[in-house]
């Protein structure tokens, strides 16, 4: 739901569907930045016989804008190649996969990483950072992929030189949200009784529990990402801020080749998916425009600014939860714009909005980017507040995004008015926002996150993951003979 199946067309193309982007300064080495992008939403661990993988005909990218233009200044590009070792077997693996190079893995995948850097004349300097890098197998089960992380993780993290590291492969989905309730008319189970269609209070259920994704993770020196070539130190300077996003490309033309029984691409690459901040396309862009948003570039986001200035969910919350959001209701009816939401997502926050502590402001140009201030030091591991800036932790979302940040709760509260004071200092958020009730009621419930690269947890194991529980009391009863 961060951006899982968020647009009609991309929902039919999971291998090209961006799901999450993270960008944060490393807590163990603050001279480094971690950039993580995920694909393949709702990846079921027991998805044999053809387990999920990156697509060979998709270009995956992680991009940086460091000059405030919304254009690509630096791009890391990933191309994958899959082969079948034993074409006479239907099996993903013909025996236990005891190492990342074990020949019993019948469908190994490798990749190439290329870095593009924009030159002064607008063209790009290109350099291949790594070729034939190994992707680990999917976590099939106890017999096929025993002791998963111990067996594969170290060999799946590759050096790209100059202090850079890269990983690409299956991991547990780090996002968490009560999908079933949130998309059931914006239900928040902790405040169920106050909904216009009331239900009993209960804790939320993480819709991503037991699910995986495919992750590309990079660890890059800060000096390589900043426009100055140095590690910034001024937390209040826009020059300390980079914009991060991920995008996916396919060939413009595709034909099904009846000889190879595969699709073949023709023509230039076109962008079919992109993602920066979590939930922007998901929650703010109308359904009829979502696919267009996926195709457009951040530099052209002025077109979408109106959806941040007038948020549909923010306008509907008072009606969905009568008497819970009276101040928000009054704000909406006053005709004032959600310049706080506009700032968070499209321009960044000026220092004065957050008490002068730091900025994520990159200028007036509207660009939907995940902004990270490279001069803000990371919060000590174990002391983070997963509500990020809203929780008083300036190293968290929306100053970049860490894997532990509860972006669903942050954004629900933001849309409910908690961030209106960023740009309207006289606004008083509704009292309910001073409680802990306005949230979806979930926490992260997948395998433990790692404290080191690549940070996402061990992928859920196909053998050990139980299928979902059927819902009770829905539909017609089954008549059994």
């Amino acid at each position, binding site marked *: 739901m961060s951006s899982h199946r968020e647009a009609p067309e991309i929902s039919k193309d999971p291998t090209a569907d961006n799901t999450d982007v993270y960008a944060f300064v490393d807590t163990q080495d603050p001279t480094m930045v971690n950039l993580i992008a995920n694909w393949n939403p709702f990846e079921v661990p027991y998805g044999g016989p053809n387990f999920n993988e990156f697509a060979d005909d998709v270009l995956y990218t992680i991009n940086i804008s460091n000059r405030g233009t919304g254009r*690509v200044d630096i791009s890391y590009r990933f191309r994958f190649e899959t082969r079948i070792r034993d074409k006479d077997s239907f099996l993903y693996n013909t025996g236990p996969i005891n190492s990342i190079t074990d020949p019993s893995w019948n469908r190994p995948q490798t990749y190439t990483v290329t870095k593009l850097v924009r030159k002064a004349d607008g063209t790009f300097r290109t350099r291949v950072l790594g070729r034939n890098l190994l992707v680990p197998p999917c976590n099939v089960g106890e017999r096929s992929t025993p002791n998963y992380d111990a067996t594969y993780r170290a060999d799946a993290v590759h050096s790209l030189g100059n202090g850079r590291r890269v990983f690409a492969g299956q991991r547990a989905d780090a996002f968490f949200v009560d999908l079933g309730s949130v998309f059931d008319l914006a239900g928040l189970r902790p405040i169920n009784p106050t909904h216009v269609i009331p239900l009993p209070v209960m804790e939320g259920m993480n819709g991503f529990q037991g699910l995986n994704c495919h992750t590309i993770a990079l660890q890059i020196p800060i000096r390589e990402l900043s426009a100055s070539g140095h590690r910034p130190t001024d937390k209040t300077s826009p020059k300390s801020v980079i914009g991060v996003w991920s995008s996916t490309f396919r*060939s413009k033309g595709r034909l099904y080749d009846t000889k190879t029984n595969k699709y073949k691409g*023709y*023509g*230039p*690459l*076109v962008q079919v998916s992109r993602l920066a901040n979590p939930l922007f396309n998901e929650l703010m862009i109308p359904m009829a425009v979502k696919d267009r948003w996926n195709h457009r570039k951040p530099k052209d986001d002025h077109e979408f600014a109106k959806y941040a200035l007038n948020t549909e969910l923010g306008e509907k919350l008072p009606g969905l939860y009568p008497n819970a959001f009276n101040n928000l209701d009054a704000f909406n009816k006053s005709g004032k714009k959600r310049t706080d939401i506009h700032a968070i997502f499209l321009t960044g926050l000026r220092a004065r909005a957050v008490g002068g502590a730091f900025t994520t402001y990159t200028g007036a140009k509207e660009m939907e980017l995940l902004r990270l201030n490279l001069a803000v030091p990371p919060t000590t591991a174990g002391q983070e507040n997963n509500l990020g800036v809203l929780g008083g932790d300036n190293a968290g979302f929306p100053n970049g995004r860490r894997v532990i940040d509860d972006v669903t709760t942050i954004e629900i509260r933001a849309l409910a008015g908690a961030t209106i004071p960023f740009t309207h200092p006289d606004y008083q958020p509704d009292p309910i926002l001073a409680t802990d009730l306005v949230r979806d009621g979930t926490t992260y419930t997948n395998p433990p996150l790692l404290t080191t690269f690549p940070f996402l947890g061990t992928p859920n194991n196909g053998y050990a993951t139980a299928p979902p529980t059927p819902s009770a009391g829905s539909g017609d009863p089954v008549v059994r003979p």
Partner: protein
Amino acid sequence: MSEPVRRDLLKVAGAGAFAVGAVALTPHGAEAAPASALPHDAHRHEILAHVKDARTGRITVMVEDYEVEIIDRALVAKLAHAVARRD
């Protein structure tokens, strides 16, 4: 990032052959070779041609990772007739 390459080759003579080179950026208005004379490496590439609106005479021709656009009303007419329904 490869940008879409568009080149109006304007009207192409005769049967509507067009020039597709390994390097997409050729000068505007380059003449097309006669239909019978294929480029020397034409056999190496599969070509995908797309006519979005036959009335314009425009054909988007895609090969490898780039595309060119030509205008050839005669060729478009031939293509349209080839796929016209047979009642």
